[in-house]
């Protein structure tokens, strides 16, 4: 049997109830079919999670997976995936994080970790030299993510990498994150995965290792990398100069920003919180993931009445939600909000969406004043743009007090609990709050949000990349697409979702597409790394298989075409102004074409012929 480069071949299954670990070897066939990362995670979830398993029960597996490229010197390969049944959406859940945690896990001897069961007492896992130890974490319980990282580095050394939950995860807040590397703020943010970790009494996963990663043909791989890295650097100059926040001004100008809880198409305050303003004021450096030629992260220093921050700065999504959706134009306040979310372990997208929802229904008079209380039980008046109220609400979410108990469950549950017509102001798909891109600015995003397997997600199709600056010849995108087009959306969306499934499985950063990287280049890397002889077509089929098994999981959870939808005010109410004024995406027509392109029936269920063609029968 050949040695397949890029993988250790080992996945640890840890039973936290019994305190027992089993190491399973991944077959060559599974590597080839599922790639790793998201693909392997989805396969394991399908095998290990019964369909009636409650997401916060011990039986729900929490899966950390690297991809074959994680930790190599391939550009943009510093990523890993966390997969589980989401407590927020109660369907397939996954989130991706950058940094170095995944690279260190692989160097510790594992491609992935699968946690099941529940520790009797607070515990953390220490992963080192192909061994997983479960250790007491009583001394960590109650600490925030930054504190946990510091304490564990003191105990195990500076060369470890830590994945942890903060108080929000401990409290099983449904929008809790898993944070990686403390102050570096690398978040597996979406879907409430931190609550699953908290439900297992698992405070942290510490990885330590420096074993080399096998490469099939190191010379060929390096030559391929060297040939394209200068081009990535040149084409991503905007990201290098201003980080992801550099996109904010353009986003507002084209009607992409979720202004005032998705009701306005323009916002005159956008300059105050843009990446360009950040660069001129609070940015003190750049941060990057393992093996990244871009460095899109920002470190900031901010001193204000909201407190001091010296560390990770807010990304586009955070600024878009706390800024645009809540209309907070005070950059220092958003920096502080980002810090609070990192420390508690709260998703900035979902919490920003939840606070914007509250501001909206408060203005509409749909919630009683007495019901809006803060951490100390004091009444709050959450007016648009009120930075102090926003920060207070984040504390109440993290500590699960006052109105935060409701907001921490996400907007779907909050609206259901409040009633009174507030569902109309709760922007989510399948329970996951919309990220900071308005689908009325890109018709393809409407279809992507409606059909993404984890609920509203801009990255599972990434289609808007290809309607701004990027191309992808292998799936027929030879030039930047028209963002308002109605035709051929289904086929293109399916192809892009398959492509992004590949990226999530190999564990490559999707910003590589901004850098001119295409599927031919990626397939070349994959073959030189693993020793397989993939074609682009086979890689895309693997992506289709991966996307489809997630849909099959969701169908078993009760998802159908009825759930492939958009919030009413996105689907039916155009905005009066801005670069996407008056546009409503033709979702119904796009869905018909999409199901046909996918080989699914009219109810959104994969046909048996499709299932068999992909080897999923």
């Amino acid at each position, binding site marked *: 049997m050949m040695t397949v480069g890029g993988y250790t071949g080992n996945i640890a299954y840890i039973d936290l109830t019994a305190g027992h670990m089993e190491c399973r070897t991944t077959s060559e066939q599974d590597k080839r079919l599922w790639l790793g990362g998201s693909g392997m995670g989805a396969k394991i979830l399908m095998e290990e999670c019964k369909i009636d398993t409650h997401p916060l029960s011990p039986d729900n597996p929490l899966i950390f997976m690297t991809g074959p490229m994680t930790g190599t010197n391939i550009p943009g390969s510093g990523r890993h995936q966390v997969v589980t049944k989401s407590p927020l959406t109660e369907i397939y859940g996954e989130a991706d994080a950058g940094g170095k945690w995944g690279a260190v896990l692989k160097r510790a001897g594992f491609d992935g970790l699968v946690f099941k069961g529940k520790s009797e007492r607070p515990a953390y896992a220490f992963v080192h030299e192909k061994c997983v130890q479960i250790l007491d974490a009583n001394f960590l319980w109650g600490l925030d993510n930054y504190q946990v990282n510091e304490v564990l580095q003191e105990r195990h050394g500076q060369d470890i990498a830590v994945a942890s939950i903060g108080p929000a995860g401990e409290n099983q807040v449904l929008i809790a994150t898993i944070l990686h590397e403390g102050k570096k703020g690398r978040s597996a943010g979406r879907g409430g995965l931190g609550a699953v970790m908290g439900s297992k009494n698992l405070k942290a996963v510490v990885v330590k290792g420096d074993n080399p990663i096998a490469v099939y043909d190191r010379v060929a791989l390096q030559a391929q990398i060297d040939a394209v890295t200068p081009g990535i650097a040149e084409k991503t100059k905007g990201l290098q100069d201003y980080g992801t926040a550099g996109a904010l001004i353009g986003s507002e100008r084209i009607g992409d920003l979720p202004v005032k809880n998705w009701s306005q198409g323009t916002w005159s305050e956008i300059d105050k919180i843009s990446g360009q303003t950040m660069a001129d004021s609070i940015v003190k450096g750049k941060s990057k993931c393992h093996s990244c030629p871009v460095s899109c992260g920002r470190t900031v220093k901010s001193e204000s009445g909201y407190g001091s921050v010296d560390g990770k700065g807010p990304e586009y999504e955070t600024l878009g939600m706390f800024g645009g959706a809540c209309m907070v134009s005070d950059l220092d306040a958003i920096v502080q909000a980002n810090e609070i979310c990192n420390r508690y372990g709260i998703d900035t997208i979902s919490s920003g969406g939840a606070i914007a929802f509250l501001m909206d229904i408060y203005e509409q008079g749909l919630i009683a004043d007495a019901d809006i209380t803060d951490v100390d039980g004091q009444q709050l008046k959450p007016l648009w743009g009120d930075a102090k109220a926003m920060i207070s609400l984040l504390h109440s979410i993290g500590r699960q007090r006052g109105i935060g108990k409701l907001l921490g469950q996400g907007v779907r549950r909050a609206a259901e609990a409040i009633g009174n017509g507030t569902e109309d102001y709760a922007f989510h798909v399948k329970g996951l709050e919309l990220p900071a891109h308005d689908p009325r600015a890109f018709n393809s995003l409407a279809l992507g949000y409606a059909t993404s397997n984890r609920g509203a997600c801009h990255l599972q199709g990434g289609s808007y990349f290809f309607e701004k600056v990027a191309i992808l010849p292998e799936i027929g995108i030879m030039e930047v697409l028209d963002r308002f087009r109605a035709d051929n959306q289904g086929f293109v969306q399916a192809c892009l979702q398959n492509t992004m499934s590949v990226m999530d499985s190999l564990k490559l950063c999707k910003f590589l597409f901004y850098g001119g990287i295409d599927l031919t280049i990626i397939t070349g890397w994959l073959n030189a790394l693993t020793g397989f002889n993939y074609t682009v077509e086979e890689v895309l089929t693997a992506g289709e298989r991966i996307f489809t098994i997630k849909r099959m999981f969701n169908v078993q959870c009760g998802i159908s075409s009825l759930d492939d939808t958009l919030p009413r005010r996105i689907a039916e109410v155009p905005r009066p102004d801005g*670069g*996407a004024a008056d546009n409503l995406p033709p979702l119904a027509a796009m869905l018909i074409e999409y199901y046909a392109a996918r080989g699914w029936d009219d109810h959104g269920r994969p046909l048996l012929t499709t299932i068999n063609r992909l080897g999923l029968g």
Partner: protein
Amino acid sequence: MRIYFASPLAKMIGQRDYDITVHSTVTVEEVVCLLSRRFAQTQVFQDDYPGKSYVPNLLMVLKNGRYLLKPQDCLENHDDLEIIPPIMGG
């Protein structure tokens, strides 16, 4: 043709808009080349120009407040343009 500069380009250039007259159809690339010569002190244009082909992921061009343009898209004198700084990310 009126060309607007989104912030912070306007601040860097020192003006919010700029008028040019074209007597026939021109491409986006030609207009941005013209701007790079007119505002030669502006670094963001120099990142693209001169002597380099138009790099659309450094600047984005919006026509009549709505249409994102590609380098070879054609423009008429009555069109309004907006030049927008980097759009990548998010």
